[in-house]
């Protein structure tokens, strides 16, 4: 039995904000992500889903509890480059060419130049941008930049991919195309993914499981099993897709009604 890709046990995170007092961003989070699984985190703003992702990435440290990645501490996993990460903004270095952006993580870890070049060519082919290797990021559209960012996240062949609303800034058409590509890439590379999103259809289309979170403090309120199997454009029009969307929406709405009531009480 191999270790789960990610194992989060009793994690809470409190941000100390000075005079405004402490903010309890996450409280009592337990979550296990199996190897090869695609898990989305969805919830209202301020539910701590991005913080949860950063805890797994070891960019933020938990106040209590434990995060293990590939059976190691999150810190060891970060040092070993066990995960790749992509953010809402592509975050490409504008002074590097597309290929050199993809090579960045490999370069920092001392991979020889020739291997690096081979790998970046391979990755750019995977995201369909091989003819743009020599371009500058500013010459690419938003969707293309995001594809470069995904190629970069996959550069070190990580078993785990962490994505924080990577398609959030894209238009609907580009977004759907990128989702389809991500499903294909994950299938080809059998990568585990934790995916933060605001979009219910996106979460349902991509995921094996959708983790629904509630805000103040951030908690996991529901976990919806999806698993639509092989996906294509017809999936978006299938009954199963809509059923799951409704299920996730109701799980979220339960929380939102709760939130509104609380807001009313405060006034």
């Amino acid at each position: 039995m191999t270790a789960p890709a990610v194992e989060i046990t009793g994690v809470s995170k409190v941000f100390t904000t000075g005079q405004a007092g402490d903010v309890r961003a996450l409280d009592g989070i337990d979550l296990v992500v199996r190897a090869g699984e695609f898990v989305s985190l969805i919830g209202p703003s301020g539910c701590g889903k991005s913080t949860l992702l950063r805890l797994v990435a070891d960019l933020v440290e938990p106040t209590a509890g434990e995060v293990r990645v590939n059976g190691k501490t999150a810190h060891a996993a970060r040092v070993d480059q066990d995960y790749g990460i992509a953010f809402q903004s592509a975050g490409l270095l504008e002074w590097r060419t597309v290929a050199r952006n993809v090579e960045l993580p490999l370069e920092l870890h001392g991979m020889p130049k020739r291997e690096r070049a081979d790998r970046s060519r391979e990755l750019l082919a995977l995201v369909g941008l091989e003819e743009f290797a020599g371009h500058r990021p500013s010459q690419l559209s938003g969707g293309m930049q995001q594809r470069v960012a995904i190629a970069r996240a996959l550069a070190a062949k990580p078993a785990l991919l962490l994505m924080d609303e990577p398609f959030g800034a894209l238009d609907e058409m580009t977004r759907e195309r990128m989702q389809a590509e991500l499903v294909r890439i994950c299938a080809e590379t059998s990568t585990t993914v934790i995916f933060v999103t605001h979009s219910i259809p996106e979460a349902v289309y991509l995921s094996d499981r959708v983790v629904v979170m509630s805000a103040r403090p951030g908690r996991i309120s529901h976990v919806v099993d999806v698993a639509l199997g092989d996906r294509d454009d017809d999936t978006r029009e299938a009954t199963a897709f809509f059923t799951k969307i409704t299920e996730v929406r109701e799980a979220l709405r339960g929380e939102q009604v709760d939130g509104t009531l609380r807001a009313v009480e405060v006034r």
Partner: protein
Amino acid sequence: MTAVAAAAPSPAARRPRREVSRLVAPLVVGVAFVLLWQAFVELRDIKPYVLPKPTAIWEQLRLNWSGIVDSAKVSGANALVGLLAGSILAIATGILSARSRIADELLTPLAAAANAMPIIALAPVFNTMFSSTSVVPRRLVVTVVVFFPVFVNTVRGLRTVDPVHRELLDSYAATPWQFTRTVRLPGALPFVFTGLRLASSLAVIAAVVSEYFGGLQTGLGTRITSAAANTAYPRAWAYVIASCALGLAFYVTALLLERVAMPWRAHGSH
């Protein structure tokens, strides 16, 4: 005005048609201005000591050409040495200031105070500090003038890091030096070059004006004052125009260096 337009290159402005109009428009305005000037002086019969005719200035430019070139070399050398010294000093202290809080708290108020000082007014003081046959006082004035814009922009450039880049490099467990090399330094370049561009024209102005306060009898500034003292106003104007050309040459050089150093900016988007 043209200098300001060239300083803020927008992607659209790089299309050939816009490039041409960007050159032609200021030329047309410039020629029209000179023609109006000439007509105004001739028609209103303005005395040369009030405002000489452009043709008279042109005549002086031709007559004094070798003198102008020699003076421009002297002032240009002062401006260049001061510009280099001031910029190197400013970039070095900028790096120090961006790295250490204590250094920053010490240096930033000092730099601001130095900037608030009428530095050119220090030229006579420097002249008595060093011998009056020395070029050091003038170069020192340029150094001090140049320091502030380069320092401020360097510090801001080094401090301005996209939070996404910070997180990204953290996720790679990059060492501080790797972070500096791959993100911080290249990210600071546009800011440093903005400082250098401002400093390049300031350097020439400071070099020329510092010659107004005695010392060596060389350079464009000295020639301007001596021509004016001899009521040779068209000649004074000829040297003023030479100073202007020298300043532009420095500015354009800084601009070209900027493009060479940052090809990703020169590229623009399509």
